[in-house]
């Protein structure tokens, strides 16, 4: 035990934190995409695992072909849009349940991603290219600053979107489908739009991560949905703990990104504590399950048959206590 603690190097933890923040910001964009479908549209979209890798693959391949790294992100976004639109098409036009439509797209994208890259992974020469988003230790704070500004701008755009007429119709669709249609909203189009937009964000995030780590891998999106969900639920819990009330969408979106950063800082901490890296996905799944279950269980405490039964027993025993 003593040797375990002696082996922990606090400076190493401090050195690892900036990387955690940078990754948190990158995944934050992914989480915003997940928020759009999972929370606003009330659909669990599993295609993101595929479109995340698509974004990475598109970005890396274009950089290898001499493109400007930032410009590749726009192409990655468009690729994600298309991927999401396919899920939307399968769901709304062909009547396939959303979860299944997402899985189908995800599987299809695996092959497509391999075709984009030609093999399972592709790397860029981090030294040669003019990357602004990089894990290079000397430039990490610049990366964080650029990501921070980029994320703020993106959140501003998304906030604006949720406030305009289309955005309101989009939110209404996820909230009450029947009402939305009775008010003339084409809910199928809204779902298609939301799924496309969500996957566009996810793919852009994938492109950023690929640039950050210097390579794209066909498996880089595996479990991405769970990390996105983790960021969403952690962000919501923190937001609720701080404000205890309704907050604006800008706050909510901010806390999704904060949730993502917290997730990655915890990730760094857990790795530093020498938790086996192979078990990280298990840990993430457990964390998400707990966070998703807490609201339900909280309600159960005072609203369950067991609780009612206990109350009834108390009555039998005189009920004074």
């Amino acid at each position, binding site marked *: 035990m003593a040797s375990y603690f002696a082996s922990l190097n606090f400076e190493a933890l401090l050195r690892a934190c900036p990387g955690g923040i940078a990754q948190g910001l990158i995944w934050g964009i992914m989480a915003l995409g997940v928020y759009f479908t999972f929370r606003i549209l009330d659909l669990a979209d599993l295609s993101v695992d595929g479109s995340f890798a698509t974004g990475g693959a598109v970005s890396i391949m274009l950089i290898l072909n001499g493109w400007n790294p930032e410009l590749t992100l726009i192409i990655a976004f468009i690729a994600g849009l298309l991927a999401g639109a396919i899920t939307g098409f399968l769901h709304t036009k062909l009547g396939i349940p959303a979860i299944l439509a997402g899985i189908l797209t995800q599987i299809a994208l695996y092959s497509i991603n391999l075709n984009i890259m030609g093999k399972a992974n592709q790397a860029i020469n981090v030294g040669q290219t003019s990357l602004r988003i990089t894990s290079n230790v000397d430039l990490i704070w610049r990366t964080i600053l650029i990501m921070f500004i980029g994320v703020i701008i993106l959140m501003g755009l998304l906030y604006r979107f949720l*406030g305009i007429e289309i955005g309101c119709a989009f939110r209404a669709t996820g909230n009450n489908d029947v009402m939305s249609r*009775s008010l*003339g909203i084409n809910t199928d189009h809204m779902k298609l739009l939301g799924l496309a937009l969500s996957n566009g964000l996810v793919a852009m995030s994938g492109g950023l991560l690929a640039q950050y780590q210097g390579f794209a891998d066909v498996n880089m999106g595996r479990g991405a949905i769970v990390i996105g969900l983790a960021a969403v639920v952690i962000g919501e819990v923190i937001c609720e703990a701080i404000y205890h009330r309704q907050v604006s969408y800008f706050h909510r979106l901010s806390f999704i990104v904060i949730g993502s950063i917290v997730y990655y800082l915890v990730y760094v901490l857990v790795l530093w504590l020498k938790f086996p890296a192979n078990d990280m996905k298990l840990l993430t799944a457990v964390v998400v399950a707990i966070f998703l279950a807490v609201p339900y269980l909280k309600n159960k405490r005072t609203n369950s048959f067991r609780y009612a039964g206990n109350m009834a027993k108390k009555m039998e025993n005189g009920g004074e206590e």
Partner: protein
Amino acid sequence: MLRVEEITKIFNPGTINEKVAVDKLSLHLAPGEFVTVIGGNGAGKSTLLNAVAGTWPVDGGRITIDGNDVTALADFQRAPYIGRVFQDPMLGTAPDMWLEENLALALRRGQKRGIKWGISKEERVFYRERLETLGLGLEDRLSTKVGLLSGGQRQAITLLMATLKQPKLLLLDEHTAALDPATAEKVLELSDNMISEGNLTTLMITHNMKDAIRLGNRLIMMNQGKIILDISGEEKKHLTKQELLDRFAEISGVQEETDSVLLS
């Protein structure tokens, strides 16, 4: 205003559960007509209303609203013409959105939604005024989530939303059935006021014969997917519940001691 020509709707066609819910039914509503619809379970009242609203396509016939053939249009495409209040108070409003956001969605019913802000400052003043007419104190709760309001309040809001932008046709589907008697009475009164104020062409389903007689200027009774009774004008004004029951027994050939068939 509304012209329904020989519409038919068959549920589960070709199966043992096949049911002809509406059978070559025709109905014409003049502008400003307020029609109450009564009939027993499975008479086809809701089917008629859903056919007009465009919940699903009909199996035959034609529906036109204000001269526009809407037979081939889906529900959201008919929204420019139709204001609608559902039986379930939860169906008419978006619970996680603010009251003013719900109203803003309703004000844009059937319009193209663009990139302008979803709600403007001037609108809020208008919403306040309109909410005051409900007399429920909701005008001070514009930024309350609608899900936090009671069923009666939500139904009153849905009613306001259905008429916020003047509809060509107002559809009320037993919209007070899920409310307690006092609230139901209040919502009915509001409905009646709004309909007469806006001179709205209205189709209202009810299971309450007294309401059907008391409200509106025309009453139709349905049975087995057809209209079996159509009373309007002076005759409707002097109609009594007993008369209605007698007429029903006479036409349908059912000797019914109670009004259970009609009320169920």
